[in-house]
């Protein structure tokens, strides 16, 4: 509601937002101002929906990757999903502008990003298999190397870009919730919704997997199948999120952290709670990003770190006092 009120166009008061919403579901008595209605429905609400959707995806992707790598510091950016998505987007913006953009319209960039994310994840997954098993350490290191490679590929591609393309890319790479329309949101939801539900069913095996792959196997978990599913799900989630709102850091790393500190590490609560907290964090950050700078918006990635990091530090200190480290 608050998020729907603020924005660069003009301030819409909460009661007016409420009136628009009420009239849209056919309950209102009064007809809202048409201009206000357009602002709310076409600019503000998509933004809110996108923040929630991307927050859910990033929170879940982070929680999944941290569980998969048995490392609380794993993050979509670490295994190169975000890098792959960024490269995919850059390639579409700079190199395939004419052909692919015309063909796919507004979907060129999101589709490119998702392909990039999946390709990199697939590559890392296969490069880090030893004797038919995935080695988590090797996976992280391969991710690191691929990230560097992807980074330089992005650098080369951007070098070839025109000024206008460069501006679009920079805007996109800093992360923004402002590009959303209902069609894009629908496409992202199509990827994120089922993936999220599927992940929730893997919560218990994911818990046991934290003991170690051999231990999980001895407890009857089909380790390789579970891991493959987790890799695919996290790539889809992070890729989908990056594709609609650019690279927004911090949420995927911090949401699960904060939840773990507050509710414990059990994935049956961790996964849904990380999704909710991810959404809340992104929503709050977006409000701050638009509120602080007046007409000029701050890049949302700057704000997500600014909002979450101090809370995270406080919780870390509390856990340290309780001897949890």
């Amino acid at each position: 509601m608050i998020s729907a009120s603020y924005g660069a166009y003009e301030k819409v008061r909460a009661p007016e937002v409420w009136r628009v919403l009420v009239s849209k579901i056919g309950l209102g008595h009064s007809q809202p101002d048409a201009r206000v209605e357009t602002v709310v429905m076409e600019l503000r609400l998509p933004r809110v929906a996108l923040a929630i959707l991307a927050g859910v995806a990033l929170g879940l992707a982070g929680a999944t990757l941290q569980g998969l790598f048995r490392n609380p510091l794993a993050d979509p950016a670490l295994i190169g999903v975000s890098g792959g998505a960024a490269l995919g987007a850059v390639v579409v913006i700079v190199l395939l502008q004419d052909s692919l953009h015309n063909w796919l319209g507004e979907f060129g960039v999101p589709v490119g990003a998702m392909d990039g994310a999946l390709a990199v994840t697939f590559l890392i997954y296969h490069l880090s298999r030893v004797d038919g098993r995935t080695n988590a350490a090797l996976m992280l290191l391969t991710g690191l190397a691929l990230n560097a490679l992807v980074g330089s590929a992005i650098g080369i591609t951007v070098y070839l870009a025109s000024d206008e393309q460069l501006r679009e890319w920079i805007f996109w790479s800093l992360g923004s919730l402002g590009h959303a329309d209902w069609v894009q949101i629908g496409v992202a939801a199509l990827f994120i919704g089922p993936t999220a539900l599927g992940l929730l069913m893997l919560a218990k095996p994911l818990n046991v997997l934290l003991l170690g792959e051999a231990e999980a196997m001895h407890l009857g978990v089909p380790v390789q199948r579970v891991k493959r599913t987790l890799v695919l799900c996290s790539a889809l989630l992070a890729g989908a999120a990056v594709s609609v709102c650019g690279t927004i850091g911090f949420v995927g790393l911090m949401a699960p952290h904060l939840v773990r500190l507050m509710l414990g590490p059990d994935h049956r609560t961790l996964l849904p709670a990380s999704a909710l907290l991810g959404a809340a964090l992104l929503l709050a950050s977006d409000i701050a990003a638009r509120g602080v700078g007046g007409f000029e918006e701050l890049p949302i990635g700057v704000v997500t770190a600014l909002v979450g990091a101090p809370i995270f530090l406080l919780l870390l200190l509390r856990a340290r006092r309780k001897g949890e480290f």
Partner: protein
Amino acid sequence: MLAAHDIYFSRGPRKILAGVTVELTPGRVTALLGTNGAGKSTLLKILAGELTPRQGVVEFGGRPLAAWPALEVAKRRAVLPQESQLAFAFVVREVVMMGRFPHLLGGETSRDWEICDAALARTGAEHLAQRPYPALSSGEKQRVQLARVLAQVWEAPAEGGRALLLDEPIAGLDLAHQHEALRAAREWAQNGAAVLAVLHDLNLAMAYADEAWVLEDGKIGAAGPIAEVLTPALVTRVFGVEAEFLPRPGEARSAILTRPRPVQL
């Protein structure tokens, strides 16, 4: 019950196991003995199905281990690794509950929690139940892991036997808890489980094990009832120390004293 036939295993050019055939007996504790690098852990991992041998078959209850559904094996056979790392702050009781995973259809029942608490009590770790696992000392962690493993095979399944595979279950434990852990292993054997424990302390092996397998250069150098297998000559040959067996009044088995072999000039 749990048997390995003619197992060969190499790591790179190094042969670890060459033609090992062994079988665990229900109701007996078997000590797996040998020097560092003799292949004890490798053999245990092969019996656990964690490593696949280059040649040879592992059978569980008369069926190839690979033909069992993973969950059915997990209900009957638990494995204690040498050390377990867990970077996340699960409470000890939750870690033990992970051992109940193969038995949980929906959620945990009060019976499962009872088993977890009893297993913690069995390894002298009940006072740790609510502590975060990562904050424990290594000996405490090992006891919690043992409790998890015991909780996994707490009750005999409707059909088929149980097996416990313990890789150095008493490493890092203080004396009282060493005895406590091995007493638990004996108790499981008395209730019909087949127990295998990798041990380095020959006296404790003598006191708690019924059988011994001695690994020498990737082969079984000796196997059988432990009182017959362990002799001064074998201890000298395998471990490279001089050994003296002292009969103890009122005890069935001797105490073993060892000293370094004199330096040959």
